[in-house]
């Protein structure tokens, strides 16, 4: 199987194949033979050329979160043809949707629709786990719409506000 992997903004070509109980993985042309064991939870024990890697791999919405010790990396895998299509869609400076990254309760809304905001300016305050968290504008622009009200709960991923890009 041939895929494109993105890690920290860089792309790699990766070919994976199973051979005699092991995995042969070719990353950017370099081949490695891996002895892989899936263990408890998300853990894998991988031996490759005498090296031992205990990693955990979690599939998240964004991709594969690979952890080793206290460190982690997000690896996105995609079919190169499908990726080209997606890139086309996401390119360009359309309106920015601000979504809740955690469930919580809206404590205050700090801006109104139509208002101009700077990048980093507070849009609203969400309380979760006893902490108030200010949600800041990801870019400068005009607030197109606000989708929540103070006092009401929000789910993770809920749309909070939309900001149309602008030069400030």
């Amino acid at each position, binding site marked *: 199987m041939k895929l494109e992997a993105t890690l920290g903004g860089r792309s790699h070509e990766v070919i994976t194949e199973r051979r005699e*109980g092991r995995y042969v993985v070719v990353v950017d042309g370099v081949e490695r033979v891996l002895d892989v064991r899936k263990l408890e*939870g998300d853990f894998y024990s*991988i031996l490759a050329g005498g090296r031992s890697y205990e990693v955990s791999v979690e599939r998240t919405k964004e991709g594969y979160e690979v952890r080793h*010790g206290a460190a982690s990396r997000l690896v996105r895998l995609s079919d190169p043809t499908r990726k080209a299509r997606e890139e086309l869609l996401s390119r360009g400076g359309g309106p920015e949707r601000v979504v809740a990254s955690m469930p919580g309760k809206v404590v205050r809304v700090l801006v109104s629709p139509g208002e101009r905001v700077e990048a980093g300016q507070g849009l609203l305050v969400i309380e979760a*786990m006893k902490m108030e968290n200010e949600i800041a504008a990801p870019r400068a622009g005009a607030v197109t719409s606000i989708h929540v009200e103070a006092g009401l709960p929000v789910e993770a991923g809920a749309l909070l506000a939309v900001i149309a890009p602008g030069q400030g």
Partner: protein
Amino acid sequence: KILVANRGEIAVRIIRACHEMGIRTVAVYSEADREALHVRYAHEALPIGPAPARDSYLRIERILDAARRSGAEAVHPGYGFLAENPALPRACRDAGLVFIGPPAEAMEAMGDKVRARAIMEAAGVPVLPGSPPLPPDPEVVRGWASSIGYPVLLKAAAGGGGRGMRIVRREEELPSLLAQARGEAASAFGNDRLFLEKYLERPRHIEVQVLADGDGRAVHLGERECSIQRRHQKLVEESPSPVVDEATRERIGEIAVRAARAAGYSSAGTVEMLRDASGAFYFMEMNTRLQVEHPVTEMVTGVDLVKAMIEIAAGAPLQLEQENVVLRGHAIECRIVAEDPARGFLPSPGTIRGLRVPSGPGIRYDGASYVGYTIPLEYDPLLSKVVAWGRDRAEAIARMARALDEYRVDGVVTCVPLHRKVLAHPRFVAGDIHTGFLEEHPELLEPLEDPWLDEIAVAAAAVAHLRALEARSVQGEGSSSGGGRSAWKWPAGGWKR
């Protein structure tokens, strides 16, 4: 029989102390905590209301009702919630229950940060320049701030733990920060009274643990340095402090004992101080409760503070003499919170899908999680505390780093990588820290470097992906052949589970 009026790791820690003393325990739980570990570990458990703390863990009458129903003789409040609310010891007294903590009067005096300052000043304890409680009039507030001189710190008179606290560097910021601080103080403590204090630049937070029995016996158990903070919440604590030598320890220990006596204190308490760049110490506040970071003191002194609190509450005179308090080695605690440092410490509630806790030489782990546990949204995001002891600070740091590499929590994002970076930072290693350390080093929030991970991450993800596809295809075959075993042959030796 002791009722533990708390939840999470501290409830578990108190229950452990009770069980070691042969004392039966009663847990209380909100509707969000039926499956919490403290409920599982206690001998008895009673519900006290809905998930929001104000409807359960902050309701004194429900706690007392649970104590009555269970026949508990004493109440331990832990930290947070009602731990510094003098109404609880009063209500306990009225109900004929022993409160495991200081007398209501001492709590009240120290809980009012303004009164506490006055008492300490009178007792000859050095305090920072500050204001009386602030009236609503913003002009008066502005006046106080100018007379103290910017930067100033807004603090909740009833507070602690960084909530309701704001640094004001310029007069323009004062109105909005005042409003924020008032709002947070009101929601956190039910009291929006604030006061101002001189804000020290790059101070170190150093606090002294005291134990007093209320009959005149009082000792200090050395200091803890808690300068690694984010938003005034401590993240890393250690004992001893790298800048406190034996003579300084005696001096600030003596100040702390004097402060405890001035407050009419009994039980375990902590005198928090700030140390400025010149080495001068200023009283900040006295916390009239067990601290989150008490384990580092326990590991260097060998004293179990929770047991000492219980013994004092039971009327036993303090056995510990000052000369028998000897600090041995060095202990560091990392608070592991379910927050994502890379995204502004965004809370990351969720369900623990996998858990491997650190262990081995020199490691203490205090937690309340288990696989399948869902961290409730309503409470503090503290997941666990990892504490490392070493013969010296370098060994404690090395052990902590090793322990954090072993620790694994799947399902929620934690601040473990941040801790790992702090431990490796040359200034931290040199002991050159202050309360603004994290803000001053934003690179600590970036992903942890790991050459091993870089070389394997892509391959590991690719293999996991291939396996997921294979598993799907096997399942597909399985169901089409009527739920039996699939014809897919796993290669020998490669797939033991």
